[in-house]
């Protein structure tokens, strides 16, 4: 084996004292994929939850949850309603007593913390704060100093400075003298976060901090949480409904379902199509966002009733460069048996086809279509009941696809979507073929919706 930089890459782990944590998870899943972050020691246990179960009376609401984390991390708790998300947070904040299992906080048993001690180490931001009183925002934020003050003491200069710094961080210093109950929901939430920071905690728990906020405030607050995590080494645990925001802002996720952990790990590991289907009974498409690089999730419509009408008819789709995505989704969700080709691997239509489990004839990336692929494609067209062409532009690299359609010579219904933009990059050859197809009876549709409607009427 060659040594690069004098190191054997495969054996690096033990040298750096990184543990692989393959202690077999006997019951329940364990969240132990923290290894990749360098320099973090396993015994820095900001939070260590072992086999936690909670019940309300005789009703179990949380079963056998494991969770370990160091500082400087953001952990998202996701899951459907009633899956125990808030219960987990309440157990962590000592609001409810677990029925079994243990919670260790900063290397100490949570039970050994007095209420005041806990408040000096952990701050909680609730979903909503009642506001039936007339405290000013600065009053509210200063309350974060309360766990640090002696019984009869009054806030001093340093307390004011900390409160001011927290308010500046959450951009709420501007309304320090306004009444808390006169603020909007987003402003109020930011004030409550400022109060939490004024506690100078090392752990911050947030229960759906952005649920009733506008999108801009959602981003603002989550960005702030991310900054705090980084700058102050806070351990952040938050319950969050929006899976896309969870994927974007959390380092790790716990997916709770039916009172137990269904999946845990990085957002990419947790937010898979299968996991989401199992937990939420909803079909989604999971992709990496091309710009942010984080996972993003798109809801799919439930399969519509029209599925019965199409009787599993086979459609072959010619598309490319993303022009086929909407058609693919429309056809699949209506129950057509769809094939597609020829598509280059890495073409976004190829990825869409993959996600929709559409059988695709493919070609290597950035390569012209080979005769083999073209022949397979023709076979696929012949096997189909209907051939559709998206408003894909044609150039010398994909003209074979169009040639294949023309070679059917009117033996099959063809529906083509007209394009408003220039689509012929073959000095007129493609236009000629498209015109020939129309002369042979191909149906020209002005839009994807029209094409699908025409298909249904065939």
């Amino acid at each position: 084996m060659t040594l690069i930089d004098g190191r054997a890459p495969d054996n690096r782990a033990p040298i750096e004292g990184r543990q692989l944590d393959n202690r077999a998870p006997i019951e329940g899943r364990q969240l132990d994929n923290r290894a990749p972050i360098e320099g973090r020691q396993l015994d820095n246990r900001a939070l260590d939850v072992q086999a936690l179960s909670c019940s309300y009376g005789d009703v179990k609401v949380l079963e056998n949850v494991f969770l370990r984390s160091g500082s400087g991390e953001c952990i998202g708790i996701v899951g459907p309603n009633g899956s125990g998300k808030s219960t987990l947070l309440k157990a962590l904040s000592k609001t409810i007593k677990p029925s079994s299992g243990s919670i260790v906080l900063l290397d100490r048993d949570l039970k050994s913390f007095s209420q005041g001690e806990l408040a000096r180490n952990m701050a909680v931001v609730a979903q909503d704060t009642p506001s039936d009183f007339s405290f000013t925002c600065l009053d509210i934020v200063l309350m974060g100093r309360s766990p640090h003050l002696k019984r009869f003491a009054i806030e001093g200069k340093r307390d004011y400075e900390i409160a001011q710094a927290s308010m500046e961080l959450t951009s709420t210093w501007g309304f320090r003298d306004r009444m808390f109950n006169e603020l909007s929901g987003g402003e109020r939430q930011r004030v409550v976060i400022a109060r939490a920071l004024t506690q100078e905690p090392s752990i911050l728990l947030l229960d759906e901090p952005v649920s009733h906020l506008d999108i801009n405030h959602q981003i603002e607050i989550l960005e702030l949480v991310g900054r705090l995590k980084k700058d102050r080494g806070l351990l952040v645990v938050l319950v969050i409904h929006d899976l896309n925001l969870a994927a974007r802002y959390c380092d790790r996720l716990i997916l709770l379902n039916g009172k137990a952990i269904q999946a845990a790990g990085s957002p990419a590991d947790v937010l898979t199509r299968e996991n989401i289907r199992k937990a939420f009974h909803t079909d989604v498409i999971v992709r990496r966002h091309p710009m942010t690089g984080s996972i993003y999730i798109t809801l799919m419509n439930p399969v519509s009733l029209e599925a019965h009408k199409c009787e599993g008819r086979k459609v072959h789709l010619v598309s490319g460069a993303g022009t086929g995505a909407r058609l693919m989704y429309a056809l699949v969700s209506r129950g057509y048996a769809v094939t597609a080709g020829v598509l280059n691997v890495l073409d976004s239509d190829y990825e869409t086809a993959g996600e929709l489990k559409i059988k695709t004839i493919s070609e290597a990336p950035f390569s012209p279509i080979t005769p083999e692929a073209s022949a397979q494609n023709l076979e696929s067209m012949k096997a189909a009941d209907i051939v559709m062409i998206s408003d894909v532009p044609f150039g010398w690299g994909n003209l074979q696809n169009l040639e294949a359609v023309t070679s059917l010579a009117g033996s099959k219904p063809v529906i083509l979507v007209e394009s408003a933009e220039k689509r012929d990059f073959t000095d007129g050859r493609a236009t000629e073929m498209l015109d020939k197809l129309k002369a042979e009876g191909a149906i020209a549709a002005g839009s994807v919706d029209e094409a699908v409607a025409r298909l249904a009427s065939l």
Partner: protein
Amino acid sequence: MVRQLSGILRPVGGTERRAFRWMLILLALLALAVVVAVFAISTGPSNVGPDKVVLILLSKVPVLGDQIAKTWSPGDESIVLVIRLPRVLLGLLVGASLGLAGVTAQGIFKNPMADPYILGISSGAAMGASLVILVGVSAGLLAYGIVGGAFAGALLGAFIVFNIARTHNKFPVETLLLSGIAVSAFFSAVTYFLMYVSGHKLNQIVFWVMGALWNASWEDVLILAPFLLVGAGVIYAFARDLNLMLLGEESAAHLGTDVAKVKTVLLVASSLLAAAAVSVSGIIGFVGLIIPHMMRLILGPDHRVLIPASLLAGAMFLTLADTFARMVMQPTEMPVGIVTAVIGAPFFIYLLARKKRKVTG
């Protein structure tokens, strides 16, 4: 007017200097309370000038008293020291106790309409006092008997209410209020029955229930004073916790308050205080309700100023109301409970209307 006053005493941007401001406000209230007390002592069927009152009082202060030349008649002195002083002191103490118990109850229940009486204290005290009056004890001990009976009844009422309301060692506000109403209704029924069968003692029971200070004695003052002193200290110790509890009990816990403990301590303290006050004065309504509320409107919700301010304002309010009750229909006097209710009920309605306006915009 409330708004202007609040604007002066709670200026915008005044958070940083509020400790200093609170101190000034409380000193002003204390000074005012002294003025009210002197006015109350000097006012009566035979007027003793305020200057004389001050001198007579000062002459009783050790060391300092020897320096003061006696310029008043022995009659004035005995009116001031034997008749009026215990009564005014008792008025101050009862008012202070009711204001303090009221501000505490409103803080615990996060409900500005709450009142310590709602916890079965007043109805229990009425039942206890009626029972003692009806069954009777030897004349010499009757005063103590009534106080003791009322106190025992008040504590019994509070005890039953707390036990009905307690769930998992916690006292949820709704159940406390509801069980308070139910227990009060039951005790009132017993009291009415006792009145019905009381015959010639009916007057005595009715006068007690209406609440009055005319039997005020130094003994009453000495009974109530320690309750007020200890109660005020204990309650003030949890002033910041009461602030936090306004944000909700869970939020208070997250900010370091042991909510269950604080609630229990404060409920016990305010109940004992209200029970002690009721047992020496009868049922004087509305002081515990409107005084804290008025102070909150003017000074804001922070209990660190609200608690002492309610104590002082309650003391002044009841003393003034009692002075009025003494003077209004001479040569007899009116039970002070009627005066406080006549002032308190309209104020309560004003608060409700204000709240309604707020809700409907």
